[in-house]
């Protein structure tokens, strides 16, 4: 009777320790999936039959044989393959930033080129291509370009940080699942699926008209004001004030300078 009770207690403790060991193994497996390292993949289902001629692995990608393999199989913790996980390293997030910038920057430069073309044409039409107005317009456009590039960089960093938070949330969710199931094999499948989803490129929309504000404000008003100032300084009677605004409204329509009055 005494021996039986001792055995009962031993079994309770053994089960408890086994479950804790499974959770610890699962935590290490999640660490390796999320931070990089070798893990076992393709868990052998309980309905499958072990093939002695094949190689099997534990949750951490270690090769196992014999009784150890059989024991892991009975617990549903035997894997048919091993895989080196890259993990969500700083390089991973940096690559995501670069991926976004590679997507966004061509659009920024395309729009910048259109604005520059419009500005050049407008200044040439006004005969101001070598003037201080041209310097100011060009400088203003470059400043706007820098501002847009900075904005895109911030967007890229923000997306990277969002991704880090999503990865963290997913890891917390999987850890919670691991505790509830105490089944590293099942959790591992979920983690690998999550990792592949995070690695996929996001669906992005076109950036829209980034230089619209600059085109409408600087193009319609500032250039005109600068030109007027220049003319008044020269005590000449030209003025663009009589030019209908619709002539310049076209400048801001698409953020691109259309033809001016030909001054």
């Amino acid at each position, binding site marked *: 009777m005494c021996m039986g009770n001792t055995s009962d207690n031993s079994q309770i403790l053994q089960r408890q320790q086994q479950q804790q060991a499974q*959770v610890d193994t699962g935590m290490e497996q999640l660490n390796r999936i999320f931070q990089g390292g070798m893990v076992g993949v393709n868990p052998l289902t309980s309905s499958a039959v072990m093939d002695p001629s094949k190689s099997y692995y534990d949750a951490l990608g270690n090769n196992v044989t014999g009784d150890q393999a059989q024991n892991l199989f009975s617990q549903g913790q035997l894997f048919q393959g091993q895989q080196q996980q890259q993990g969500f390293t700083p390089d991973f997030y940096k690559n995501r930033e670069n991926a976004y910038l590679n997507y966004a920057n061509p659009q920024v430069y395309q729009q910048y080129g259109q604005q520059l073309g419009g500005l050049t044409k407008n200044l040439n039409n006004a005969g101001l291509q070598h003037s201080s107005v041209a310097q100011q317009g060009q*400088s203003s456009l470059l400043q706007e370009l820098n501002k847009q590039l900075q904005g895109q960089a911030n967007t890229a*960093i923000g997306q990277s940080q969002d991704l880090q938070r999503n990865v963290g949330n997913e890891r917390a969710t999987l850890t919670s699942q691991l505790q509830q199931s105490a089944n590293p094999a099942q959790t591992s499948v979920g983690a690998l699926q999550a990792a592949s989803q995070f690695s996929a490129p996001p669906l992005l929309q076109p950036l829209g008209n980034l230089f619209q504000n600059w085109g409408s404000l600087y193009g319609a008003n500032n250039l005109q004001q600068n030109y007027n100032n220049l003319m008044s300084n020269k005590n000449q009677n030209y003025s663009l004030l009589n030019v209908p605004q619709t002539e310049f409204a076209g400048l801001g329509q698409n953020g691109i300078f259309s033809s001016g009055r030909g001054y």
Partner: protein
Amino acid sequence: MVYLAQGGDTNMGLLLPLIALAGTAAGTGLSMAGNAQSARAMNNTANDELIRQQEFSKKGGQIYQQNLNQNVGVGNAQEQMGQGANHASALYQALQNAQTGGNSSGLTALNPQTQAQLQGRTGQSNDASSALQGYNSWQTQQGLGNQLAGTKLGVNTTQSQADAANLPFLLQGAGRAGESLQGLGSLFSTIGMGAGLLKGLNGLGQTANAPRIDPGVSGYQNDFSDLTSNPYGFPRTFSQFRAIH
């Protein structure tokens, strides 16, 4: 039983009380030993659980301290903000250095003064923006660090609770550890009680007015003595019984 009791000799009369006394004493002693064994086993079980809980607590403390060391405090915040700001600043620089100038458009290149103004304004904007990005980065890293520490603490707590939940079952099992001695003690106690009962019965037969069982006395009648006849031919006395068998 009556036959044994009436063995009649003095030896048995002394033996029964001794057996009763010894059995009771042994039974009591074994029961006490069994209880002590159960108590020791339960104490050991409780102590083992306490040690395991202390280990869980120690592990939880280490996780917490690690998070404090890596994620909390002005020093860590400044380091994380600095890293975030440097990263953003480097990214701005890389992008802006790659920009195309106005020369290819047919416009005159920016004069040094305008270029310096442009660079000054852009630099100020970059510095301010990268500093703000540093705060964002710190917030993100802080959140991620706390989340990871919380997750680890959650796992530790769950394991601790699961372990503690087994304690009642373990104590129940430990409480039965002395059952074998207690059972043996009960057996001895029963023997002692049985012997005492026998002695009592024997003593009852030796009271002054009670009919005494004495096969050597001729013509002694048993409790059937009120019967005037023995219609069924059953032996009435022990002598008759012995004579038949």
